[in-house]
């Protein structure tokens, strides 16, 4: 792939998303203070000592932002992996097998989707033990319904192509048909969706944390930080806006990348090989 053909918008997205990723990976090296160390007064303004000021308990906001990036990105990424593995595998299987299995899976997904995601997550999380594993699984499974629908739709389209029929006539098993005939043709659509789903995960996690059911204090995560500092807004303290802005910036930059990938996606019929 020629680097020159990547549009500027995608470059912006790539640069800013990699900065976030960099911060998340090297958090302990980058953060000037510990994550939960109280190092100053409550809601200190920005200064050379505390570049972004301090939060509602006097912790360094920049350090918490960096550690927060780590928690937020890691959990969102893991949940995305869960949702994609589950959703795309079941979706394609439903499309290929068809019949009752398809009905059962599709109606099950319809059932899950008929309940508002946030409310469903709130109910489940308040019943289940509040740990990170539960959080990832709940987020992953709820989101898998969306991936299921997409991958089933794409797979149904590919499944009626002559080359899939040729493979069936040859006597190929379902695993070959799903992994070698359909998946490569669905991949670019799924990859583009991956970016969008990841962003939904970040927003979902932030929403849950804001409501107090996501990451538990004193662990730092962006949604939780908005919640901790929201009262400051009344007194004109901008501390809550910084994690909120970070969420927005991340969402936009990943979207820019996803858009670019979607544009590159060529359709099946006139598609240009897999190179």
């Amino acid at each position, binding site marked *: 792939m*020629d680097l020159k053909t990547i549009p500027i918008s995608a470059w912006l997205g790539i640069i800013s998303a990699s900065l976030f990723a960099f911060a998340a990976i090297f958090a302990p090296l980058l953060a000037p203070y510990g994550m939960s160390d109280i190092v100053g007064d409550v809601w200190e303004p920005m200064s050379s000592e505390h570049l972004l000021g301090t939060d509602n308990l006097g912790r360094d906001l920049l350090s918490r932002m960096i550690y927060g990036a780590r928690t937020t990105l890691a959990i969102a990424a893991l949940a995305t992996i869960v949702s994609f593995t589950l959703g795309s595998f079941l979706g394609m299987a439903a499309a290929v097998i068809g019949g009752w299995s398809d009905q059962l899976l599709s109606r099950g997904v319809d059932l899950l989707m008929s309940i508002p995601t946030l409310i469903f997550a709130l109910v489940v999380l308040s019943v289940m033990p509040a740990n990170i594993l539960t959080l990832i699984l709940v987020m992953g499974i709820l989101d898998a319904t969306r991936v299921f629908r997409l991958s089933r739709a794409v797979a149904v389209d590919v499944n009626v192509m*002559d080359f899939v029929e040729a493979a069936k006539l*040859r006597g190929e098993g379902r695993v070959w048909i799903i992994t070698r005939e359909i998946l*490569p043709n669905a991949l670019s659509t799924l990859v583009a969706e991956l970016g969008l789903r990841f962003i939904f995960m970040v927003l979902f996690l932030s929403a849950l944390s804001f409501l107090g059911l996501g990451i538990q204090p004193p662990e730092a995560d962006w949604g939780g930080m908005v919640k901790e500092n929201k009262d400051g807004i009344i007194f004109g303290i901008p501390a809550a806006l910084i994690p909120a802005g970070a969420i927005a910036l991340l969402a936009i930059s990943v979207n820019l990348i996803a858009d670019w990938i979607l544009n590159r996606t060529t359709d099946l019929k006139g598609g240009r090989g897999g190179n």
Partner: protein
Amino acid sequence: MATDQTEKDFLDIRDLKIGVTVREPGEPPRDITIVHGVSTTLEKGKVLGLIGESGAGKSTIGLSSLAYGRGGVEITGGEVFINGRDILKLSRGELNNLRGREVCYVSQSAAAGFNPAHRLIDQVIEASLEHGLMTKAEAEDRARYLFEALSLPDPDTIGERYPHQVSGGQLQRVMTAMALCPKPDLIVFDEPTTALDVTTQIDVLAAIKNAIDVTGVAALYITHDLAVVAQVADEIMVLRNGEMVEHGPTSQIIEAPQEDYTRALVSVRSIVHPEQAPTDTPLISMENIVAGYGNLVTVLDDVSVDLHPGQTLAVVGESGSGKSTLARVLTGLLPARSGQITYEGRTLTNAQKDRPLEDLRQIQMIYQMADTAMNPRQTIGTIIGRPIEFYFGIKGAELKKRIGEMLEKIELPAEMASRYPAELSGGQKQRVCIARALAAEPKVIICDEVTSALDPLVADGILKLLLDLQKRENVAYMFITHDLATVKAIADSIAVMHLGKLARYGTKEMVLSPPFDDYTDLLLSSVPEMKLGWLENVIATRKMESAGN
């Protein structure tokens, strides 16, 4: 209007150059020229046939006489004079006045060209009203007159119907009426009969020819089928890769072509295949097959055919005759409702998923659209190699060698193995599909309209290859096609299908010699022949009206 009455040629295309900007994903856009300086003139009331293979630029040139370029196509040079003015220099408003008034267009797919939500008559007279040429009553009168000239049934009332209430052939004629309604000077016909069955095509062709005679309009008739254009055109221009090959009166092009390429086009389908007598033990016997979709629709009704080893059974019929369904029954994708298939003396399981691997290997299939029959994300090597690996368990260097051998058999270079399907031409793609079927070393290959999506010369090459391979590998073909010329070229025995039943079945000689039943007569006589006056002759002598009426 600035009509120059002294000028005899009212359409005058001078040194037309057309370019297009190609934007391939992942590559910077580049400009290519698709028409390299083509010139022609046309007198009033004459028909010029533009003929060529796909990519010859014939549609592009046709559309340029409306000063229109389709999807990114740009007219980069030259002049197009209509009634003495250069229409490429007209403003948008003036062009709107030209299109649908002086020049009209008839597209290939009438079904896609009509708005399904409006009655036919309203769409036919729309352009005339839009340009203020006639009152509504006058326009409707003219439409009814044209319906009659185009021999549409119930010319007085057919306009009240919606597009889905008439057949494909009728719709194509209504579209011609739509183009003729505003009394244009020129009509561009863009492959108007290509999507139709042969027996319908002949009626539409006759109707169009009659309408041109009656109205005295000039026409550009674009097609890839020389035999068709020979029936309607006064002059023919042969195009290839955006350049003119030959231009002359129809009789000269057909009877005394000057250029090699034209000669090849005229003599296409000259394959001679001596018929083989059926053997005593057929390889496959399909007996009393009844099949259909769901429990209500019966597509095949009591069909029995035999396929002999190393021979070709051609299954001929129009769309909807059930010929493809017969293939699906043989493959087991659509299990027959009743009847049985015998393979080498033993009964073959009806459903494909219950058949043992060995049975699946013995019956392979080649599809009409090579584009969709190959996975765009697999290399040619993978596509051809997979059956070898799958059925015979051959891997590694040996597999590579076998792929090379297969490519050699289909006359493609060995380097092709690392290419992707999108990098191949249509004919090459179909060759790869043949190699994939052959790689399984089958006894039977089902060829489902394998040449109908290809240009005549390319299709000829594919047929020759198939016949050659049949001799060498002793494989039997079930050849499904609507094209009788192909059948004559390659078949040993023929099954003519009509509405799900066998209309006629036997050896090639038996089926193709008189006395004919009415349907076979209609089918055989409808195949356009490269002879002047063929159309009138057929219309006058045939026994049965086609289903299009």
